[in-house]
């Protein structure tokens, strides 16, 4: 990943990890990101870890946003950071969000586990996408956009 100038468009990869085929939320996320001026590489549903890595290499992505809704996210996400390390993209910005774990668990604890797994940010269900985009802009040093 090369250093980007402040005004340059940031490329982000999105997708629903594992055997999960919930597409609607992911499409909304894609639209919101595009609206906010990001270039989105949407991988859709049932995305394997390797697919995220390959797409990020080819498109020189700045960040990867992983979604999961079906409760298996914790299993599916294990080792993802290592795979990016292995592919030479160890410093890529990794974000995860959705219904990440089964049952009622304390969010702070869930977040801690995902950050320990190597994600830079983790978001609980029902998060306001405006906040996700604001964080992403700040984290990537991306330009703000009017409208």
């Amino acid at each position, binding site marked *: 990943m*090369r250093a980007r100038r402040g005004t340059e*468009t940031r*490329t982000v990869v999105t997708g629903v990890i594992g*055997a*999960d*085929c919930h597409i609607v939320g992911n499409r909304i996320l894609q639209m919101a990101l595009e609206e906010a001026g990001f*270039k989105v*590489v949407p*991988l*859709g*549903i*049932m995305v394997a870890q390797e697919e995220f890595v*390959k*797409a990020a*290499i*080819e*498109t*020189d992505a700045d960040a990867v946003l992983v979604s999961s809704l*079906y*409760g*298996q996210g914790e299993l599916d996400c294990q080792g993802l950071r290592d795979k990016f390390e292995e592919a030479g993209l160890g410093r890529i910005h990794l974000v995860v969000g959705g219904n990440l774990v089964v049952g009622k668990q304390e969010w702070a604890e869930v977040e801690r586990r995902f950050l320990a797994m190597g994600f830079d940010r983790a978001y609980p269900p029902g998060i306001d996408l405006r906040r996700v985009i604001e964080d992403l802009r700040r984290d990537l040093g991306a330009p703000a956009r009017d409208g």
Partner: protein
Amino acid sequence: MGDRELWLFIDFGSTFTKVVAIDPATETIRARVQAPTTVSTDITEGLGAALRLLEREVGAGATYARKLACSSAAGGLRMVTVGLVPDLTSEAARLAALGAGAKVVGTFSYKLPASDLARIKDLSPDLILLAGGTDGGNEEVILQNARGLAALDLAAPLIVAGNRVVADEAAAILRAGGKEPVVADNVMPEFGRLSVEPVRERIREIFITHIVKAKGLQAAERFVEGILMPTPNAVLNAAVLLADGCPGEPGLGELVVLDVGGATTDVHSVARGAPTDAGAVVKGLHEPYAKRTVEGDLGVRSNLWNVVEAMGAQAPPADPEISPHAFRAILERFARDVTTTPESAEEAAVDAALAGIAAGQAMRRHAGSLEVFYSPQGPLSVIRGKDLRGVKLVVGTGGPLVFSPFRSRILREALFAPADRASLRPVDPRLCVDSEYTMFAFGLLGELDSKLAVRMLKRYCRPMDEGTGNGR
């Protein structure tokens, strides 16, 4: 009759130089002859021999108003393709080269280490396709690979078809190294989307301007108007014309052309390949509408032992009358001489069995696949590649198929099999044969008169009936 104006179409093949004479007024094939290709001495010797045979068939008074050729002689168009990620831009580059009729002798990915560069030099390709990065994507790898290739002691022309942001910079690096690069549109402008047509066009231009001369074929251009394309490209053109037709002359719709040869087996599908299962998840690249694959290890003569190996325990499946000993003896006779044609009923049966295996394997590798996953939401179908189950026409070509009494049996080996549901091959198509083995000629004819080419393709691709193939 002899005074008629005829059009000639010539294929300088690796083994035979084939000449087809077409009468454009009556829209018929007047003659098809062949003589051994003479590329190691002078390509025009074999052509001359073929033309003398032709004269015997059509009489001395004929005039040849148009003369177009294609070629796969002298090793064909040998290409090396370079991309970034193996199943992304590397695969896109490979598909683009295959679609242009090339023989892909090497596919490389990521930053090329010194060992890969040395390997490319050893392969000594006719043409190199350098891709990598989506538009606006990775810049570093294609630039580094351009530097590596620029320093390589290799005269082959190059096409740069990667990330457009740095394509010109990559070309400049190559030019500074004394190379002749041409820039084309990216083979994968956006993630997962292929754009192979612009590269195919550049490949064809370079074939005409550089490759024909580099291979010592230009002597033939004293006689022919031009050697326009590699032979597999002419066959793919014919397949597209037959499927799509042209303005004023409808085609037959989506189809697959299967070309079984002595050294390789080619499959051309002209079909969108959209999933026929409602709700199936499609993964991987969206493959080209006109897709060609070539199986370099599947042929019924020079690659005969590979095919026998693929038969496995089934051998000999052709005929229970043939003893394993006789079967082996026939195989050995075929293997000794690549130009051997079957001489007895037993040999024809063995030949057909080999062709059937080659056809089945080649089609399995060409067609997409289906996997069923059991997710928490129930079973899910995941499709990769082209779903060809709905294709309604399969056309067979290639000597071992066209001239076989068992040709419909051979083609049926290439179809969907209930025991192998994962392979998305045509389920219930009509089977046709390139009856005069002249498909390449119609592909070239399309360059002159596409309506005539479509009409003649429709006339000469004939429905197949078991047992009638023996009349030739």
